[in-house]
Structure formats: structure tokens, C-alpha cells
């Protein structure tokens, strides 16, 4: 296996349905072994993009490659991938073992080897005992594992996952996230994962593409897209952000002083004086202190205890500012509604956003 090989490549792919552009000029490279997520709200084009790779839809423009082979005009059954569907799509008339062996049967793998590999795949997802059951006799979590075994047993170049955890309840979903990630690490299967759940994308992915209105707004590692969001959409879709607007009053050596109306902030930003800027600060990066500690003055409006964290909502001259405090000590719980406070952040925590 050559390192750095590209298993999935989308080149300027667009797709229109009845003159509505669902996917617009999307280009993506997924290197071998990577867990790549398409994240976005419903209708953003992420599922259409996945279906283009699967071959269930055909692009209006652009080219698609799977492991170097141009598949743009190739029907789904001749493409080297397998897929886990949102509703699992297990064949109800076949047993678990027959479901798992289906792909091998279609590839004309001889009987004994087929049975052995299906058995191994079921063992891999810890369902050896249920081979002779029918899908409807299984729980949601078990069906999910069967779907995964059925997809992985054919050793695809790419594994496509269409919100496969969406049908499960929260606790099971979190368990399956870790399990799926472990399995993917162990097998090294290149994976394209579609989800609308930002936490899921952050947990599972090596790289995330955030989509909106058919366009990829940002691609990067989870930490990169979370900490350095490029647009307001990314900053608000991925986690929670405080947004501030201001005008640059002084700029020098890659830093800019911005007038916010209620105070001055210094940002790491190359700008020109007079330029209007919008920037984001994550709630967990905001520090909270007594008025005497310095910072922007505000008043505590609401306090929400969340177990691991406490969320404090501040009113700063009519702007709402959210602060997440760790409940590591009881400090966070010392604040009261109506308290006058001061808040601030480290200079690098403020991320200037592209003007859209």
C-alpha cells in the first residue's frame, strides 16, 4: 500500500435536479485510510455527494475517481466501494449470514470461502451467535453491526456511510461511534462518512468538510475547523460561537485594534484601518472575572448548570455573550444572576471570519 495514495477524488463535481443545484463545484481528495466526514445541515448536498460517489446519481459536471479509476460513467455495481445505509437496508428475506455473504456471492466467491469470510466478518462485529437470525429479530444496534459487516466483508476500496448512526438512541450511538472508529483504524479502510451531527463528525473524523448550499465551506482536521473556522456558518454550525462586529482603528505587524462600540479588542489579523471585521470567540475560551480584573464589562443574565460545564449568559451592552465554564472547582457556581462581571479572551482565541 503506497502511502499518500488517493482513494476518492472528486474533481469540480456539480449536480443539478430540475435546475436546482444540489452540489456546486465540489473538489475533494481522500487519501488511503482516512476517515473523511461530510458535515452539514439537511439539504446542504452532503448526501447527494455521497450518492454521486456511490453512482446512484450522476454528476451534471465534473469527474469522480475511486482508487485512481475514473468511475464518473460507471454503474454502481462496478465501482469498488460498499455502503452502510441510513436505514441499514438489510434484506429482510435473508438471514444475517446470507446478508453478510451477499456481496461475496455477487463477486462469485466460492461457497466455503464465502462462509468463512462471512463468519469472520460477523465475529469482527461480535455477532457470531446471530448468523441464522433474520434482520427483524435483531435490535437496532445489532442491525447496524450486520450492515457494517456486510459492507466490510467485501474489502472495499472505500466505505460509504450515510448517517449510519442516526437511527440509534444517544447512548448506543456514542458506543457505536467509538466502535466504528476502532474498527476503521484496525482495518485502515478509507471511509466517507455523511452526518449532520457535528459532535459525531468531530469524534470520528481525520478530516471534515463542512457543506452548505451545495458548497464546501471549509475542509480540515477536526481541531482546525473547530478552532479556526473560516466563516460564520462554520463557526456556528460546528459548536457554539460568540460573534463580534467592529471596525479597525489601528493596524500594524499582523495585529489590528478593533473598536467594538463597548470597548477595544486586539486581534491577530492583517487588515487596514477603517475595515469592518466580524470575528468569533468560542464560549469556552472566554474568561470571566470580577470587574476589577479588567476586560469588557457585562452583567450575568442567566446561569445554566450542565453537569460537566456551567453555561453563563452575559448581557454586554445589548450583545449576548455565552461563556462555558468547567465545573472543575466550585468557582463557576459562585456567580449569581445580576452580578456585574468582566470578560476577556486570549488574543489568539478570536478568529476573524471571511466576509460572506
Amino acid at each position, binding site marked *: 500500500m503506497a502511502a499518500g495514495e488517493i482513494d476518492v477524488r472528486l474533481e469540480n463535481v456539480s449536480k443539478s435536479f430540475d435546475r436546482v443545484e444540489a452540489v456546486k463545484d465540489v473538489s475533494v481528495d481522500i487519501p488511503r485510510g482516512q476517515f473523511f466526514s461530510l458535515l452539514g445541515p439537511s439539504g446542504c448536498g452532503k448526501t447527494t455527494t455521497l450518492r454521486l460517489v*456511490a453512482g*446512484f446519481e450522476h454528476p451534471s459536471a465534473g469527474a469522480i475517481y475511486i482508487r485512481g479509476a475514473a468511475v464518473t460513467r460507471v454503474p*454502481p*455495481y462496478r465501482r469498488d466501494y460498499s455502503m452502510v445505509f441510513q*436505514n441499514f437496508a438489510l434484506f429482510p428475506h435473508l438471514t444475517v449470514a446470507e446478508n453478510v455473504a451477499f456481496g461475496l456471492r*455477487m*463477486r462469485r466467491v466460492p461457497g466455503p470461502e464465502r462462509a468463512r469470510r462471512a463468519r469472520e466478518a460477523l465475529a469482527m462485529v461480535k455477532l457470531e451467535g446471530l448468523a441464522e437470525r433474520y434482520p427483524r429479530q435483531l435490535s437496532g444496534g445489532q442491525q447496524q453491526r450486520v450492515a457494517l459487516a456486510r459492507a466490510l466483508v467485501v474489502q472495499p476500496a472505500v466505505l460509504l456511510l450515510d448517517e449510519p448512526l442516526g437511527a440509534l438512541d444517544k447512548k448506543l450511538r456514542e458506543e457505536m461511534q467509538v466502535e466504528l472508529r476502532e474498527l476503521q483504524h484496525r482495518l485502515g479502510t478509507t471511509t466517507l462518512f455523511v452526518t449532520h451531527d457535528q459532535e459525531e463528525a468531530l469524534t470520528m473524523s481525520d478530516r471534515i468538510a463542512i457543506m452548505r448550499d451545495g458548497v464546501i465551506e471549509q475542509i480540515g482536521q477536526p481541531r482546525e475547523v473547530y478552532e479556526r473556522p473560516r466563516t460564520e456558518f462554520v463557526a456556528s454550525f460546528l459548536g457554539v460561537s460568540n460573534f463580534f462586529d467592529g471596525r479597525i482603528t489601528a493596524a500594524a505587524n499582523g495585529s489590528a485594534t478593533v473598536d467594538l462600540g463597548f470597548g477595544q479588542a486586539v486581534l491577530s489579523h492583517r487588515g487596514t484601518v477603517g475595515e469592518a471585521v466580524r470575528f468569533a470567540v468560542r464560549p469556552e475560551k472566554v474568561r470571566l472575572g470580577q470587574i476589577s480584573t479588567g476586560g469588557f464589562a457585562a452583567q450575568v443574565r442567566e446561569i445554566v448548570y450542565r453537569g460537566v460545564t456551567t453555561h453563563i449568559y452575559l448581557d454586554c451592552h445589548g450583545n449576548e455573550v455565552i461563556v462555558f465554564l468547567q465545573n472543575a472547582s466550585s468557582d463557576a457556581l459562585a456567580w449569581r444572576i445580576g452580578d456585574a462581571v468582566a470578560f476577556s479572551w486570549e488574543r489568539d482565541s478570536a478568529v476573524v471570519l471571511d466576509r460572506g
Partner: protein
Amino acid sequence: MPSSSIAADGSPLGDLLRQLRSWSLVALPILFFLIFFAGPLLYLFVVSLLEPSQTELYGTNVTLQNYAKVLGDEFYLRIIQRTLLVGALVTGIALLIAYPVAMAIARMTPRWRIIAMIALMFPLMLSNVVRAYGWIAVLGRQGVVNTVLTQAEIIDAPLALLYSIEAVVLGLMTILLPYMIISIANSLTGLDRSYAEAAQSLGAGPLRTFIHVTWPLSSPGVAAGMQLVFFLTLSAYVTIALLGGPRFSLLVSMVYRSAMAFQWTFSAALAFVLLGVALGVGALIMLVLRPGRVQGRG
């Protein structure tokens, strides 16, 4: 209400009352079914086991001679054979025509699907007698087909199109086709497209997707359609009589004829042979198609 307070407390008495109440909803239909269907059927079965009588409706001695007469006589065996043949032809041809049509309907938008379904129901509103006479007007000696062919000088003398097995099969098929299409279309419409897509993603082309996934998953609709068409063929007396002519007989014609000849016990036995044919073929369809698989049963 006192009864609801008793029913709500979960005591054994409450449970009993609740059960009685839910049974009371079906009690009337069950009673009706017992009095007007199960009872007479049992009575008819008893009659089929009695000796014929010259003076009474039936004799008093229990005998198998009525059945022996049906199953021991080559004439009747040939009629059973022909009944099976007509049933198989009508059902088989209807299936071949209906399946692609049903697939097309299943792919329509909901709006067009409703329009297509109503269009399919439409012919069912017409009396079978009227439709049989329609076919006579088309296939008869002076019918449309013969007139056109003679005047075009393709044939010299009119063809004997009517009063044949082909005419009967054609007539029955056109009447019964909608049942088959609607049954299969319902089954296919309910199928999530992700099943076919899953098959394709696992390397199955269109043909193998059909054989391994679409066909078995539509088997409840196919089985229901085949049974409906076959059973209705068995009892389609009017169409068979009008399009088959006086000398073309199926089991149902013989039941009618022997009853009209006051051979009550023999007629009863024929009716039960007909029922046996229906049950046998119905079971065979279930056995071959195994529609229960789709619900995950073996």
C-alpha cells in the same frame, strides 16, 4: 361510567371485561360468517358424502361414490386438467404482463400512481356479461376481426375465433389483469429503494438485483395477485360460458350443469373438488413464492 372504572383497574375481572368488549366488535361478523358461510359449507360437504336419491334431495347412506365418479371418470379428469390449464394460462400470462406495468406504476409520482390505479379499477366497474358480449362482438363470425380480415381479403372465410380456449383465456385475462397489477404495484410501491441500491452497492447488476432482491421482496404482492386471479378464474362461470361456448366446460360449468340436473350429491362433490383444486394451487403458490420470507419467517 362504572364499566370503565372496572376495566381500568387491571383486575382479572377488568381484563375479562376488556376482552369481551373487544370481542363484541367482531362477534357479529363472526356470527354472520358462521351462519351463512361455514354452516352451509359444512352442510354441502355432508351432502357430497351421501347417496343420490330419486325421490329426495339426497339419500341417507354415507358413501364416497360421488367423489369416485368425479375422480374415476376420464371425462371429469380431463375437465379438471383443462381447468388447471386455463387457470395456469390466465394467471401466468397476467403475471408476465402485470409485473412490468406494476414496476412502472411503482416508479410514478404519488399523484400519477393514484390516477393509474383509478384507471385500472375502471374496467372492474363494468359487468362481466357486458364485457363478454364485447368480446363476442370482436371475435364472432361477423365480429370486427373477421369482418376486417375478410374485407381486406386476407382470409376467404371467417375464422373460428370464438368458442375456444384462447377466447376464454383472453376474456378472463383482460378482466382479471387489474387485480394482478394492483397487488404487485402495492407491494413494489412499499419497497424502499435502498434495498435495490444496497444490492447494487454490493455488486449486483440490474438482473441479479431483480432476482435476489426485488422479486423476493415483492413476493407477497405476487402471491396475492396470483391467488386472486387463479381463484377468480375458477369461478368465472359467465365468461367461460359465453366465450367458451356450449361444448367448452370447466369444473365450474359442471357444478352448475349437474345442479341444474338435480344431481345434488354429485354437484356437491364437484364443488368440493373445485375447492380442493383452489386450495391446492393456492398452497402451491405460497410454497413456491414463500411470501412469508419477507416478514423474516422461514
